[in-house]
């Protein structure tokens, strides 16, 4: 066992012995694993210093957020965003500095002006040098506040369907923007409902009566003097949502709003003064922003919530006791129940798996970005397929993972003070924004089918999919449950399954009468094929990552357990797909199950240290159930007493209950 140093503050305040004992049995060094997750001990140090600076500033406290109304949350988010500007100047932090990701990670999105940053990024990527020079300084200094208006009331993922129009008027050298009907109203953009002065509007471009498709325009929507809407602009908040109460997601209606010709973002295409439409480079570049955004959300918006949920649920499960496992003994920790382990530990394994796949995707995209800057667009289809499929898989998996954690905490998970409901309602939004998941899986599937057909015709295909052409029917060689702890064995099973799902489809699609009909008739299976591919790659990257770890401090060993668990849980949960066509036999499936259940008991011993390694502070978890010291019940009790329902005298008794009671008393 590793003797892991215990946080000083928790020693002073007294750690719940049920949680303290969990930390004594760790098979690895928590501190070393944390450093590994941060990408080096120096990063860990920097992150902690930043977190410390933010947490010591009461302006950033989130303690009251669960008690606040939509209006209060919005105001607090704006206040915090303004304060952050001040703080950054004080601390010498900059937008482009290494600190920025740790700052926003800690804030976990509970701040205004996030779309302002998307506004800036879209200008940087899609704007000409001149446009960048004009707008970025204004935005950086917050002289203007931006938003990004793409989605419409009636149109989401399918961009070509957008209805907002921008008609070029040669006479005045302006674009005339209009919302022709109610379904064309911009709907959902963050920061737009109340805050933004400007927004990038996506609209169908018309020149001389000809439609050139969707293009981005910078539109001023509010006065820079008194913040009132500009003439022709109707703008407001879209009302309460499942979460994001702090964000003023907005609607926007434009009636004959004019913007100068120079306001169309023109890094890649332009309307010249005489109305000539010019394009440079691939049209696909417009999609590259979307593609990178899909990857960039994964870490903070999707994987982090799962890590937090695991931390809360696993620590709470070590503190919560229920029923007896042995007569005469104390009630058992619920973490000792196999059914509880089966709920939580696969989620923990997934959190690690996705952490590693996320690193892999970022490396892939950094390379791709370099190429595109050099106007080489060859890798775009593959990057697009990757971003679509992994965005869909990771968001879907993490969403269900967080919900499992929530429900694994029983009644207390339902209290907002557990932190879990707000983690859940946030992460689930990621299944929809930046592309609806089913649509995204279908895009990945389209790429896979294309590649497979290209490979069949002897053409070269990207390295990530070459496995598709290596199909060799066979049987799994495993004879013993221990064989399934060999990555070669389970990787092969995943590979076979992915190949089978893709090849089977190719026949179906080609046999169909009409191509589009055939496609729609196969979409359920196409989604499955894309999922199988992404699942396979995730397992593969996990295996490769583990192989590269050195085994100092016990880290490789515990990561190997998690990798095995992630892989076997996937086989166990999708048994039919692996049994189909007999690659795995029924008897082998029983071995998988046995091996999988054995792993639960093994990882159980390291469960709390494994979530400690995520290194969340209590303030960033903001949970009564998940705090480091495990003083769950005391915290829940004290926090509940601060609820406005207890602090304020409810008018309900005097106004309604009392007359009701007295009405009867007087008759007695």
């Amino acid at each position: 066992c590793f003797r892991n140093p215990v946080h000083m503050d928790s020693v002073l305040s007294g750690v719940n012995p049920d949680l303290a004992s969990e930390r004594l049995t760790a098979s690895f060094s928590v501190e070393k694993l944390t450093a590994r997750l941060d990408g080096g001990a120096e990063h860990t140090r920097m992150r902690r210093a930043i977190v410390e600076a933010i947490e010591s500033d009461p302006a950033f406290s989130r303690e009251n957020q669960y008690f606040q109304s939509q209006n209060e949350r919005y105001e607090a988010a704006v206040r915090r965003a303004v304060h952050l500007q001040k703080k950054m100047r004080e601390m010498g932090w900059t937008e482009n500095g290494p600190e920025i990701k740790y700052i926003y990670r800690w804030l976990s999105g509970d701040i205004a002006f996030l779309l302002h940053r998307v506004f800036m990024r879209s200008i940087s990527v899609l704007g000409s040098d001149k446009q960048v020079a004009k707008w970025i300084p204004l935005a950086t200094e917050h002289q203007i506040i931006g938003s990004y208006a793409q989605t419409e009331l009636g149109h989401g993922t399918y961009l070509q369907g957008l209805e907002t129009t921008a008609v070029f008027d040669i006479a005045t050298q302006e674009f005339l923007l209009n919302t022709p009907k109610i379904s064309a109203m911009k709907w959902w953009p963050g920061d737009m409902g109340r805050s933004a002065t400007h927004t990038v509007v996506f609209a169908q471009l018309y020149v001389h009566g000809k439609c050139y498709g969707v293009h981005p325009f910078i539109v001023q929507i509010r006065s820079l003097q008194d913040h009132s809407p500009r003439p022709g602009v109707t703008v407001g908040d879209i009302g309460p949502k499942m979460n994001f109460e702090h964000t003023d997601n907005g609607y926007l209606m434009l009636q004959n709003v004019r913007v100068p010709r120079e306001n169309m973002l023109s890094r890649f295409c332009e309307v010249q003064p005489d109305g000539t439409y010019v394009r440079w480079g691939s049209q696909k570049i417009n999609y590259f922003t979307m593609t990178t955004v899909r990857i960039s959300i994964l870490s903070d918006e999707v994987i982090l919530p799962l890590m937090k949920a695991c931390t809360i649920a696993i620590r709470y499960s070590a503190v919560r006791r229920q029923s007896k496992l042995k007569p005469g003994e104390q009630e058992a920790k619920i973490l000792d129940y196999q059914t509880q382990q089966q709920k939580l530990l696969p989620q923990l394994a997934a959190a690690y798996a996705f952490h590693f796949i996320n690193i892999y995707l970022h490396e892939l995209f950094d390379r791709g970005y370099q190429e595109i800057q050099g106007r080489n667009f060859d890798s775009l289809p593959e990057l697009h397929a990757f971003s679509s499929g992994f965005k869909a898989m990771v968001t879907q998996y993490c969403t269900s993972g967080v919900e499992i954690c929530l429900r694994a905490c029983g009644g207390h998970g339902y209290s907002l003070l557990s932190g879990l409901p707000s983690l859940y309602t946030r992460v689930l939004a990621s299944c929809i924004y930046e592309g609806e998941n089913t649509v995204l899986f279908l895009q990945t599937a389209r790429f896979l089918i294309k590649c497979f057909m290209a490979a069949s015709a002897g053409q070269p295909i990207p390295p990530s999919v070459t496995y598709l052409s290596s199909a060799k029917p066979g049987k799994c060689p495993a004879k013993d449950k221990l064989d399934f702890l060999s990555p070669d064995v389970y990787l092969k099973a995943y590979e076979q399954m992915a190949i089978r799902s893709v090849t089977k489809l190719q026949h179906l699609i080609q046999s169909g009468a009409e191509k589009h009909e055939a496609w729609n008739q196969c979409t359920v299976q196409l989604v499955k094929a894309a999922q199988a591919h992404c699942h396979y790659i995730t397992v593969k990257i996990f295996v490769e990552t583990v192989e590269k770890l050195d085994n100092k401090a016990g880290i490789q060993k515990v990561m190997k357990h998690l990798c095995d668990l992630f892989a076997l849980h996937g086989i166990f949960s999708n048994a039919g797909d692996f049994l189909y066509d007999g690659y795995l036999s029924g008897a082998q499936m029983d071995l998988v199950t046995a091996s999988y259940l054995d792993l639960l008991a093994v990882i159980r011993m390291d469960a709390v240290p494994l979530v400690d390694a995520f290194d969340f502070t209590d303030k960033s978890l903001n949970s009564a159930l998940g705090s480091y010291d495990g003083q769950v019940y005391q915290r829940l009790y004290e926090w509940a007493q601060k609820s406005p329902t207890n602090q304020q005298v409810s008018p309900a008794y005097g106004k309604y209950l009392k007359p009701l009671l007295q009405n009867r008393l007087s008759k007695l």
Partner: protein
Amino acid sequence: GRRLGEREALVINDPDFQHEDLNFLSRSQRYEQAIRKSSLMVMKLREHGIADPDEIYWFKSFVHRGRPEPLDLHLGMFLPTLLTQATPEQQDRFFMPAWNLEIIGTYAQTEMGHGTHLRGLETTATYDPATQEFILNSPTVTSIKWWPGGLGKTSNHAIVLAQLYTQGQCKGLHAFIVPIRQLGTHEPLPGITVGDIGPKFGYDEMDNGYLKMDNFRIPRENMLMKYAQVEPDGTYVKPLNDKLTYGTMVFIRSIIVGDSARSLSRACTIAIRYSAVRHQSELKAGEPEPQILDYQTQQYKLFPLLATAYAFHFVGAYIKDTYRRISGDIIEGDLSELPELHALTAGLKAFTSWTANAGIEECRMACGGHGYSRCSGLPDIYVTFTPSCTYEGENTVMMLQTARFLVKSYTQVSSGQRVTGMVSYLNDLSRQRIQPQHVAARPVTVRINDPISLVEAYKARAARLVEAAAKNLQAELNHRKSKEDAWNRTSVDLVRASEAHCHYVIVKLFTAKLSEISNAAVRAVMTELCLLYALYGISKNTGDFLQAGILTDTQVNQVNQHVKELLAIIRPNAVALVDSFDFHDVHLGSVLGRYDGNVYENMFEWAKKSPLNKTEVHESFHKHLKPMQAKL
């Protein structure tokens, strides 16, 4: 929507029951509105002289539009518990005042540290013969009563479950009537600490509360003594039969099964209507954007859930009927059917609430971004429904209770006895015993177009998984000393067995229902739904059917193919099938699910009323944005 009935309209249009859209109110405001409506409702019930429980229930569901409200526990738990567990003398003292709402009560069972495992509760009630009182105490933080609805702010009494101590001995859990607030001022009584537990995922209008008692004394006569009794000198008199509490549990769980059906039906109604209104993308190049309900992936998300909603509806009705049928026997003292029904309802409660919980979320996801807005009504259905996976018995624990009964039945069959009821398929095991193979390995010729044949397939799967779990349990028992330990190490298998059993029961009940439908067109469409339910279940669990050799690879292909065909067959009836659930727009509370389908214009109207839109320029501009811009 559908034209309101005269009586319904009277309640729904009553100006006294109007208020701002709940989505725009804070928690405190929602609580206040709910209390206001409940108080008015009680006055009106008195005015109209309505006293029949069914009529009160009906009235209440229209006043509160099916939402939780602070008097739920008073009406649903406090009054019934008085009726069933109070002595005639206690009823005289408490029932009429409670009926007249001089006493507002709640039911305080769950503690901060203890839920489903009742024996672990820590609150104590110690009898003091000198004063003939019970002394109630919350000895630890974990023993604080936590969660009871209506406790936080509304109630002035609570029925408290506590460990009874008399003559130095613990006699287990008993129920006590405890006054907690002063009549007249509503202030907590000395020795009582009571309050609201704070914001939750949903149930905003409910004041779920905490209760801490410090040496709080109540007279001996406040213990509910219809069954167990404490005599003045402290002598404890045991109750005659403790299985009786099973009856209440069966009843409550049957209500949750019905709730699963209803909540899922509401979500399906919204998602399917909206999918008929929403257009997106293209199926054929050059053609207008199709309704999203025409996409196979959308149908595959929604239609199996629609079929599930119907299946659960029939299951809920079945349990209710069965309970009614045997509750006569229970009063007569014949409890022979109770254990099976108790075991079955535990599993079905878990199975249906888990499925509905996931199904509601799937419906919401199927509505894309707009499903995430509270105007869709779907977030609200979800947060209101999801606690039913936990309350009245945590689902995993429920599944294990069913498993216990299944294993017991399996053991009986193994020792040569016959079992009856829903588990009678286990009897086939004894015939299989002579052969060394799995019970399910006997050939089942499955015809995938025939519901009756599919019932057999589900039966074979259940038999196989029950047998596997029972054998694994035996193997663990051979290795280990502790029974509990072996049980724990098999619990994943046991839950799987229970799920398979429940799934079988549902397919069986749905199939049996078909022959009772006299209208041919209705029977035809119900048969399609039943087939879809059964086949979809197979396609989602192919592993079980392949591994047990119940289906071949080719049949699995046919199942998948047939599911897709059924989606297309059901498509034309989809909206009619949700219209049949007959929810009023006011009950649905959804802009996306409106009967008239005028979604977008009404979303805009709704959004305009958002609290952030109260003024054209939000005060945050003057407070924060303007000073920031000035400073830079």
